[in-house]
């Protein structure tokens, strides 16, 4: 029997995205990219973006990498969330996600958080896993800021 905390963390959606990650590929061209590394558990992933300069819209996003279920599912879900969004929208999703997983008090109510992000709410009780969930988002942010490498020590 699994404890409810485990079940809460490893929700169906996470397990499913872990098994079949979306946008898992190296694109032929990209305008931004960054490498993320979590030395704590060895998770590594590359995020690729195509940003339309005029409209400042993310026209394509993909990733590849090795990692635990949480980090992989988070990367996969992230790509599905930011594709087609403006850079600004992507960044505010990052902030929302970050605040939720680190348990920060904000004005955002639960139902304002997209359900696909809400499945990661459980990691806030598992400090060792927060970085797994946020690695992809940190890497996205780094790519958008023009940094090439980040490490979530």
């Amino acid at each position, binding site marked *: 029997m*699994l*404890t409810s905390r485990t079940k809460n963390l*490893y929700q169906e959606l996470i*397990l499913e995205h872990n098994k079949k990650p979306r946008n898992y590929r190296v694109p032929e061209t990209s305008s931004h990219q960054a490498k993320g590394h979590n030395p704590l*558990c*060895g998770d590594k992933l590359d995020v690729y973006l195509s940003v339309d300069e005029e409209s400042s819209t993310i026209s394509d996003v993909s990733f590849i990498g090795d990692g*635990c*279920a*949480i980090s992989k599912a988070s990367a996969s879900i992230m790509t599905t969330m930011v594709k087609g969004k403006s850079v600004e929208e992507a960044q505010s999703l990052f902030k929302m996600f970050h605040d939720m997983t680190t348990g920060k008090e904000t004005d955002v109510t639960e139902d304002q958080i997209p359900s696909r992000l809400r499945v990661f709410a459980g990691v806030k009780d598992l400090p*060792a896993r927060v970085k797994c969930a946020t690695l992809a988002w940190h890497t996205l942010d780094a790519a958008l800021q023009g940094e090439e490498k980040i490490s979530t020590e």
Partner: protein
Amino acid sequence: MSQAAIKTETVHNPDQIQKQLKNLRDDFPILSRKINGRELVYLDNAASTQLPKQVIETVSAYHEFHHSNVHRGVHTLSQEATDLYEEAREQIRSFINAPSLKEVIITSGTTDAINLVSRCYGEPRFGKGDVILVSNMEHHANIVPWHMLAEKTGAEMKVIPITDEGSIDMDAYRALLGPDVKMVAVNHISNALGTINPVKEITDLAHKAGAVVMIDGAQAVGHELVDVQALNCDFYAFSGHKMHGPTGIGILYGKEELLKEMKPNRGGGDMILSVSFGEITYAGLPAKFEAGTPPIAQAIGLGAAAKYLSGLDRDLMYQHEQNLLKYATDKLSSVPGLRIIGTSPEKTSIVSFVLDGVHPHDIGTILDENGVAVRTGHHCAQPVMERYNVPATTRASMAFYNTFSEIDALYDSLLKVNELFDVNQPN
């Protein structure tokens, strides 16, 4: 004292041996902790072992009744602290059978000890053309200091390969040994694979080639009877927290003739005979390498840990750990999708493994939900991960206080992992 109870006649049946050892669990307060509502199953002993109440109480009693700075005081407390500190050194000396107290240097840990050798022995002696051999299964503590030394001096670090099962490739080692080899740095037991290395043979071969030998004994002292004279190694390093003692303390054993020739490591109080601004005269051994106020309470705690272990039936403990190893190896091998990394015939009670389709990090979290504490990751031995082409492993490491039923708990939790991730299921 529960220790007396086990010095009875020899028993061979694994369950009987366990029964003899089981009351020792009461010495370890943390073992009765609950984790997420379950009994703690502590299988992370290779990272840090737990402390018996005898050690915890020795440290507290020191603080409550005898604490003072050592060595230079005439008052009673200072004398008591000095006596306790030096008695601890004697307990540790006897624990590893070092010939002399001068050869027992108190450091802050294995890492500090290996860095001391790299700096004070290697740095003034090594240069371009010199070779330092390390094995492919070393902990970062026995790689990075040599890497830094090589960068500084121009010496070269070469790697002794390991076999697929995780033993040192002795033929390759022999082939690497040449007159250019100045230092051989190898662990006694690998924390990532569990392999017990033939350190006596490795030392003899190195000596024949004219090299000096540094043994990283961090994983050995809690399990093996270590006799530095029998091993005949030149340096031997270990940490208190791997042998049921405190953190913040470790030991460097070194042969007197080598230590005597070496420059001091850190400068400060207690490591000098006299200081004026023009001239400084260094003290003799072991003081030369113990600058500043030493880890007094920690040394006394480590002495208590050495005494605790010495009071137990080490053969019986060893037998039990080997029984646990065999039981765990058999049981885990039957988990669908599980592959053990490190299958040397000579192993300590460490089982490192990967599970198809599940990242170790996820395994670690789910096991923890069931109260089972294992370590996941690269275990500060990234070259081992590279060697086996895995990003990380899950590692269960047992001490004498672990039980067969704790292995069962590990096994059951692993089945749950497979179930949750819907992998490695019978079709």
